């Protein structure tokens, strides 16, 4: 897990997204325990309050749940929730941006589609 301290995105959001990435990649499986606030803070060298804020965001979204006195766990269905959320963002942050950049570079839409086909063939 890596954080980008120069990104304009706040650290706690980056941390929440990094944990989501780990869930998507299967590093954390559903019903498995995730790293504690302390472990995350120490490893990433960030304030524990920041680490806690990132984890709590995922608890609020029901992606993680708390077991009192034990720690935080990945909810059943977490993967599906993250996928759904990310797919909604995909169009805005990738497709729209892709077409904007293509316009700047004078690449016609047909050629973009051809490029996507070429990328898929790889």
């Amino acid at each position, binding site marked *: 897990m890596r954080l980008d301290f*120069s*990104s304009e995105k706040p650290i*706690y959001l980056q941390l929440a997204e990094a944990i989501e990435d780990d869930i998507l990649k299967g590093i954390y499986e559903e019903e498995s325990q995730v790293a504690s606030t302390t472990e995350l803070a120490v490893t990433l060298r960030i*304030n*524990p*309050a920041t680490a806690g804020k990132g984890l709590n965001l995922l608890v609020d979204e029901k992606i993680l749940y708390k077991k009192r006195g034990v720690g935080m766990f990945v909810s059943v269905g977490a993967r599906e929730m993250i996928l759904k959320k990310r797919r909604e963002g995909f169009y805005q942050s990738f497709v729209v941006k892709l077409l904007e950049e293509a316009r700047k570079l004078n690449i016609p839409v047909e050629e973009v589609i051809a490029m996507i086909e070429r990328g898929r063939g790889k």
Partner: protein
Amino acid sequence: MSTIAIKGICKDYGTTRALDNIDLEIEPDKIYGLLGRNGAGKTTLLNLITNRIFPTAGEIAIDGESVVENDRALSKVFYMTEANLYPPGLRVREVLGWSKEFYPGFDMPYALWLCEQFGLKTGKRVKELSTGYGSIMKAIVALASNAPIVVFDEPVLGLDANHRQMFYRALIANYSQHPKTIIISSHLIEEIAEVLEEVIIIKDGSIVLKQSVEELLGQAYTVSGEAAQVDSYLAGRKFAGGEELGKFKAVTVLGVLTEGDRALAQKLDVELSRVELQKLFISLTNS
């Protein structure tokens, strides 16, 4: 859980006013960074909090009790000074033993474990330690003191990159397991930026600001790109300091980013990124 209340503190050295009417509330169980340029008054303030010197005016209280000549209030604070105040002939293990006398909560097994982790030989005498190991010894005593308030003045002085990393990790682990009020004064701002919860910036003996790091960094950002484009982005905005290299320009803009700003940045093909605490610090304390 201990609170420090600083009210109307002034400190004069002869005709020089080192601190001018400082009001500050240090809340319990937070990690504070005390930042300021050389001679700004950081160490004077820390010395006053720990009753090493007397104020010209004003009062400092820990949990409602004045710190002046008050052992009970002072036993709640551990102060890791930049200067080495231990007798040079003492061995490291004797320093640890003495610390236990003054701080009943001192955790000896933890202190010895830290010595082992950092490779500090407990049989060495204080005078035989390098600058780096001198800092390490003092930092270990501070971490193991278990005082509810721990003050570090330049804790990583002379430490190599590896040891600095170990120190920050040990500090975070210690704080997570035993929450306490921590005040760190350091010139290595970028290294501690993410560890801090709040910053206090002091300039010419006055407090410039006291704010959460997240909030502070949310009030400024960096815009960079081709100089002419950056300039047109800056039109009508408040900004502080910047860098130019050929046609490239990067400037710290003071303000909260809006969706409109992002759209404009995209149109002008300039990049927005997070401001570094260090750069913001420089622009706030320069002049």
